[in-house]
């Protein structure tokens, strides 16, 4: 294994190093092409073309303000109201950044979980069931079934199965975050975007959450923004390193952490950043 200083010979490292996933077992589900994101006149993302492999976990890392969260939120157009997103976002061959795409239908396929757990002020059961009801799933047994499966997949079922009527606001942080994951997967998305989902959790909850994510990847394509490099190393297959609005390096996670090609990446993953 190289130490980062071994490869850090000034002038010899490339400025960017992008290796898109090519694993035939895990074809691309989502990709960005020519993506530019503007907040007003300020350009927040200008080089961010990535391909995401199906049923794999891809981590987006980088310092705060590097654009990784903006990038993630652009993928299911959560930033539509505050930012201008140019370029194409290809989801299974369809550009979902076209104006006539129905964003609501699209977001059911590309779901999102946020930094701070945001359970609704409803019962645990209703947190999961109510979006389904709005989409016409009204049969009680069907709802029960989806609630149970989602909670099981999010590894929360055993803790809450006897108190599904309890207010979700009474859950602990880790439980609440897993409820949010259960809520997101209940609408059966294809891709799951997670924006630093563990940053508000204690170490035990974090490690439980990571286990959950590792299990979830057999069903979903997961893209996770994280500050925590150990976390990226533990759970992801691919890692993209963001710096000042660009993806500087993209490769398999093991490459990024053991053999980074770009000086800045190497500094960041070895903790010499800034």
């Amino acid at each position: 294994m190289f130490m980062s200083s071994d490869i850090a010979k000034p002038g010899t490292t490339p400025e960017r190093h992008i290796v898109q996933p090519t694993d035939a077992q895990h074809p691309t589900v989502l990709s960005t092409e020519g993506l530019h994101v503007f907040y007003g006149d300020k350009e927040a993302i200008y080089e961010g073309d990535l391909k995401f492999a199906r049923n794999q976990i891809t981590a987006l890392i980088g310092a705060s303000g590097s654009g990784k969260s903006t990038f993630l939120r652009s993928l299911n157009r959560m930033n539509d109201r505050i930012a201008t997103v140019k370029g194409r976002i290809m989801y299974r061959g369809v550009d979902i950044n076209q104006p006539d795409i129905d964003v609501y239908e699209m977001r059911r396929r590309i779901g999102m979980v946020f930094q701070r757990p945001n359970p609704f002020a409803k019962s645990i059961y209703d947190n999961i069931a109510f979006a389904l009801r709005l989409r016409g799933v009204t049969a009680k047994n069907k709802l029960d079934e989806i609630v149970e499966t989602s909670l099981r997949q999010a590894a929360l079922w055993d803790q809450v199965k006897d108190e599904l009527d309890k207010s979700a606001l009474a859950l602990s942080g880790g439980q609440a975050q897993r409820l949010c994951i259960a809520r997101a997967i209940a609408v059966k998305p294809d891709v799951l975007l997670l924006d630093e989902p563990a940053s508000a959790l204690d170490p035990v909850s974090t490690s439980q959450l990571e286990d959950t994510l590792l299990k979830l990847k057999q069903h979903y394509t997961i893209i996770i923004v994280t500050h925590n490099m150990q976390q990226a190393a533990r759970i992801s297959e691919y890692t993209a390193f963001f710096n000042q609005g660009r993806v500087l390096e993209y490769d398999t996670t093991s490459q990024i952490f053991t053999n980074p090609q770009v000086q800045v990446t190497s500094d960041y993953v070895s903790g010499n950043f800034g």
Partner: protein
Amino acid sequence: MNSKVQNKIAIGVLYGIAGVVVLILLALVGYILVSGLPKVSWHFLTTPAKAFLKGGGIGVQLFNSFYLLILAMLISFPIALGAAIYLYEYAKDNWVTSVVRTAIEILSSLPSVVVGLFGFLFFVVKLRLGFSILSGAFALTFFNLPLLTRSIEDSLHTIDDKQREGGLALGLSRWETVTRVILPAAVPSILTGVILSAGRVFGEAAALIYTAGQSAPALNFMDWNPFNISSPLNPMRPAETLAVHIWKINSEGIMPDAKAISSGSSAVLVIAILLFNLAARYLGKRLYKRLTSA
């Protein structure tokens, strides 16, 4: 004079001012209750007023006040809710929004007598609704809309944006998110605002004297068909409210016990407002607890 002495004097003066204010306020409430409460009895609250004789009650006026309040709230709440949702959830920060906000501020600062006069001109005269519950309810609606809108907007503001993101991320529209996630969570605070504004509406008189009118024809409390002229529910009948009654009998009252009736009515009015206030605090807290705990 040295600054420590100055400090002592100043703080002493402030104690004095606060004391005087407390005394004034206590005397005010004390006077209302002490002079009014002895007049209040079941008989007083339920019998109709008498024009020339002693011993009249405020039954009809009390009923009118509540009926007008309920109608005005039924009309103004949906409008205020819609306006608040648009302003808080949809409106972009541009000149149109600022014009609209200015208009709402102007409406809230208009003297209620002006609102009442407009109601008179538009509903009573132009639309030929006459002095009626309906005209009065519309005038009260205009009077109530700006404050209620602002209070609902404040309630929406108390709900974290993360909740909105949560709804959107599930593929819900903003409208579904607001109506199914945000509003239920904001119910305690919205309810508090609604009850407090109800208190204001309940005591309003200037907007009503030329809209709901200053007379309270006898009602037949057995007849609940809103199309009958003596039915309490008939929205086309003139309806003097309790607050208007106090003004009316003091300005041109000819009953011999006008003062006693005013005292009693004032006490009833103030107690009603007090109850609205307490109910707002209590229900708001209670609902919030229910929402956040098991």
